[in-house]
């Protein structure tokens, strides 16, 4: 899927991804309308389905609020690429079906506004500006399965259904 790059620096924390003042409303579209607003007022009104958020080191540090991942998926973000991730955001993103790609070299090559094509299954990002295709280290199989299922909740539902299927001959 093709999308545009939104690029940020190091230590993008979850307070700026989704400010605390919006946390009590769980509506995903509402959260998306405030995504990134404390560091980038242009993001929420202009982000399109399939766009990619790119960060530096320690993306998603700070509060465990998973609304930071929810607001990005609801805004249409296809994946987050960063030099490194803070652990809670990393887990939240996967559990909500948002691919997270740790690839420092790729981050260096991407510029704000670049058009890219991401293939999670192949583990490649094609950079339209140069025509170059960059490979990244793919995620472990059980995480890829979680992402294919659309996150932890659908994954658990599937598992429970399978269990029931076995017990009912």
């Amino acid at each position: 899927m093709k999308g545009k790059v939104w690029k940020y620096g190091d230590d993008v924390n979850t307070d700026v991804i989704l400010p605390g003042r919006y946390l009590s409303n769980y509506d995903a579209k509402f959260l998306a309308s405030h995504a990134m607003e404390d560091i980038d007022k242009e993001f929420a009104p202009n982000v399109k389905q399939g766009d990619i958020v790119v960060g530096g080191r320690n993306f998603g540090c700070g509060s465990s609020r998973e609304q930071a991942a929810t607001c990005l998926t609801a805004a249409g973000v296809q994946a987050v690429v960063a030099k490194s991730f803070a652990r809670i955001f990393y887990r939240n993103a996967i559990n909500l079906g948002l691919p997270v790609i740790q690839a420092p070299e790729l981050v260096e090559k991407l510029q704000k506004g670049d058009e890219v094509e991401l293939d999670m299954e192949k583990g490649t990002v094609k950079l339209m500006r140069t025509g170059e295709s960059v490979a990244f280290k793919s995620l472990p199989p059980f995480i890829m399965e979680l992402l294919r299922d659309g996150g932890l909740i659908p994954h658990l539902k599937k598992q429970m259904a399978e269990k029931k299927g076995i017990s009912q001959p």
Partner: protein
Amino acid sequence: MPKGMTIAEAILARAGGKARVEPGEIVDAKVDRAMSHDNGALVAKHFAEIGVEKVWDKDRIVLLMDHRVPANDIKTAEGHKKIREFVAKQGIPNFFDIKEGICHQVFPEHGYALPGQLIVGTDSHTTTYGAVGAMSTGIGATEMAGVWATGSLWLMVPKSFKFNVKGKFPKGAYPKDLILKIIGDLKADGADYASCEFYGPAIDAMTVGGRMTICNMSMEMGAKSAICPPDKKVFDYLKGRAKGKYEPVYAAKDAAYEKTFDYDVSALEPMVAAPHTVDNVKPLKDVAGTKINQAIIGSCTNGRLEDLKEGAAILKGKTIYKDVRLIVAPASREVLLAAMKDGTMDIYVRAGAVVINPGCGPCLGAHEGIMAAGERCISSTNRNFKGRMGDPASEVYLASPAAVAASALEGAIADPRGYLK
């Protein structure tokens, strides 16, 4: 011969049903306790989506409300209502409504945090319970819904860091200053995915509360968990509190640490984290005189009785600067009761402080002390991110309760040492 295990490794091996584990290994771990606060409403929503009728073990779940108490708006009130309904439906006995205080204070006070246990919570500062020798870490609401359904989650065994801390804290320097100094050195991602273990005479001499401050804020350098080896102080603290038996876990003598850091607190001075990152740490004297509008003493980091007394010792018999708002938020009802009984609260109220109910209060910018653009606060809380406490154009400096109290007197960031005998 394979090396022995660190505390985190030993706890994860036990929780994963394995004889030993290595850093990087993924274990399917059974959790001993699961904690959620106001965001329990979001967990309950996801739990319903999974389609399981009952939680895996109602006695192992602890629910409370602390972030926005009493409810600050209709959405919050709806969330609180959902939590109460969920608790009633599931028959969860370990539930605390809005009166009790902040999760990370209430959870240990009521004896749910025990040595050797694996604890998960839907709050990043869940690392706090390492102060009693537990491995505890923050997870998201969706993941917690999975825990409520299954009682387990996958965890990667973290690498472990060892901090050896020696020396005696000089006047005016506290555990808060030590952890700020460490975060300033290691930076916001210096302990990403790592379990930090704290040893040495300065840790041994520290109160359990001081250790809670250290373990709480280790999260701000990315730590997955932060643990102090449990000692007599911890066992004494747990007497009459502990919910159930526990087995302390210690590191093997030959345990392998990826990195070791040595600190000596003998020459430690008051520190601050300047806007807008927690790792932007400098000696307080570098920013002394910076005007402030607001000062806050409280939070899961520094809202315990010893913290309130630390500030009160400076404010006793004095009145705060006329243009400063001093907000005091005790970490729990137990703390508030003790602070009323020993006269600490009297000192604050007479000095001109606004005492608010036990809870997270203004720390996360939800209510009870939100700042306007251009305003500045010095706070004993744990985060100073842009927009954390209100308008994105406001500023937060983090410091010890003593430094906050001294600053409230002067209307500007001030060194507490001048007020200590």
